[in-house]
């Protein structure tokens, strides 16, 4: 049995119907569905050992603390971090990037310094740097995207100067599906004396990640896209970088001693975890990571490659449909964005919804990228391990229905 069909039963939500039709969920790039083990772990936390971490001198508080720190170790193993203390729990990718901008960026950047981004970044890897650049008088530069939906790496060499402090780049595009060659980018950035931040929101859920091999300095990820709960996620950073960084948020948990005028702070990662952290989120995220590793990233990546190849081939049969980004499955993830000549993305999504098919329509928080492709919006179907060939068949049938509906009116009046 193919992987999608084999694991589908683990995800209770996928059994529901929408508008009287079985749900076909093709929006995992926005958020993933959750397996039963994750939902059970969430319930178990609140029913059995809900207590605040790092303070209680009683059994369940110690249990919660131990599980919270064990979750950190699990995430560190998942990403091949050198040690658990390199993982800072955050609410997700956006907060992780803002943490780097607000702490490392504010402490490091000087007027005239440069940050290199790419045209395929999500707004969460653009706007924090714009805010920082405006405050510091720094400059932002963008690596262009080719018509084929790949980064123009020749341009990267021209953009890197001795003023470049950081290259912030997405691992896997949430719109184009493109998987970027992070190691190559990191080597060039490091040769120019810059650090590298990787937005891994779309890659950690789908492929084995080794931060050492990637050559990254910072890596941000979200729990809810990797079968975990919303409001969970984290930042990985090399420990010596974290050690040199000032606090991001101030509050409880992150201090050693508080005096009237100033305070001293804990070592990383707790220096960056002010207040009560998302305890359940972190613990349950580790359960999700274990589930993914249990299925195996090799199997997941192979199945998603098969599904994407199948989808790209089937979509070729829909007249007037144009895919944004790579049209072959090599170095490509499970997000497929497209436009149709006869129907706007919102109309496509609306018609598909009536068939129980959930896709995304809009700019997917990537306005620069859409403008680069000359459109204001696109429709996006994205897969995860639990999708099947039947889901793709339903999508393609739905798109033919969209075409029929909107060409009916295109006849001359």
């Amino acid at each position, binding site marked *: 049995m193919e992987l999608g069909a084999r694991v589908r039963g683990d995800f209770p939500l996928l059994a529901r119907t929408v*508008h009287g039709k079985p749900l076909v969920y093709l929006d995992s790039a926005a958020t993933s569905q959750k397996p039963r083990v994750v939902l059970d772990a969430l319930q178990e936390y609140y029913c059995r050992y809900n207590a605040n971490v790092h303070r209680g001198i009683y059994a369940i508080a110690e249990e919660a603390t131990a599980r919270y720190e064990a979750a950190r170790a699990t995430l560190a193993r998942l990403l091949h971090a050198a040690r658990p203390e390199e993982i800072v729990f955050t609410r997700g990718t956006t907060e992780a990037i803002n943490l780097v901008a607000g702490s490392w960026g504010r402490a490091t950047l000087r007027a005239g310094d440069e940050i290199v981004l790419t045209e395929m970044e999500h707004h969460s890897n653009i706007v924090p740097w714009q805010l920082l650049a405006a405050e510091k008088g720094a400059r932002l530069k963008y690596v262009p995207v080719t018509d084929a939906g790949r980064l123009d790496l020749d341009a990267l060499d021209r953009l890197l100067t001795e003023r470049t402090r950081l290259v912030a780049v997405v691992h896997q595009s949430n719109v184009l599906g493109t998987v970027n060659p992070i190691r190559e980018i990191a080597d060039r950035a490091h040769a120019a004396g810059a650090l590298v931040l990787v937005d891994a929101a779309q890659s950690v859920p789908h492929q084995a990640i080794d931060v050492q091999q990637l050559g990254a300095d910072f890596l941000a990820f979200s729990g809810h896209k990797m079968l975990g709960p919303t409001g969970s996620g984290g930042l990985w950073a090399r420990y010596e970088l974290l050690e040199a960084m000032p606090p991001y948020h101030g509050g409880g948990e992150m201090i050693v001693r508080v005096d009237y005028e100033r305070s001293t702070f804990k070592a990383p990662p707790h220096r960056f975890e002010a207040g009560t952290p998302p305890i359940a989120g972190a613990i349950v995220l580790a359960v999700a990571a274990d589930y993914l590793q249990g299925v195996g990233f090799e199997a997941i990546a192979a199945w998603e490659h098969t599904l994407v190849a199948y989808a790209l081939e089937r979509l070729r049969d829909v007249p007037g449909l144009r895919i944004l980004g790579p049209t072959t499955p090599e170095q490509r993830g499970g997000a497929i964005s497209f436009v149709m000549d006869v*129907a*706007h*993305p*919102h*109309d496509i999504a*609306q*018609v598909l919804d*009536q068939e129980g098919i959930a896709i995304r329509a*809009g*700019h997917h928080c990537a306005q620069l990228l859409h403008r680069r492709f000359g459109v*204001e*919006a696109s429709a996006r179907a994205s897969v995860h391990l639990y999708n099947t060939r039947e889901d793709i068949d339903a999508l393609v049938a739905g798109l033919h229905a969209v075409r029929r*509906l*909107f060409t*009916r*009116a*295109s006849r*001359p*009046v």
Partner: protein
Amino acid sequence: MALDDLYREVILDHYAHPRNRGRLDPADVTVEGANPLCGDELVLSVRLEGDRVVAARFEGRGCSISQASASMLTEAITGKSVDEVRGLIGAFKAMMRGAGPADSLGDLAALQGVRKFPVRIKCATLAWVALEQGLDERAAGRAPTRTTTETDPA
């Protein structure tokens, strides 16, 4: 909920064959409208003779509902006095809120099916909200600004 309620024949026809597409220059009222949620954008321009609309044009990009509604608007207001146009805007917005009868609105009544799809209501009202703001600005002698569905939820 049936798709036929949303995509009525007359709406699909206006989307595929928009009427009065383009821009009037000079114009007595020019106003931009945007729906940041969807990315719908349009520019309406209206020419008056005395108190009467003699021409209306629109240009823009967006979904079938926003574009068809703008196309229907340009047809509906041509030949009407400014007061009549204001009355029509009020009647249209009332219909879209479910607070007024649709029978006096002719073809525009086709858009009432959008009410069953709440996230699309702003697509239908975009052109109307923009026109109302354009008329207000002209009456007040103010320079035109950009209307968005976020500043006036209709």
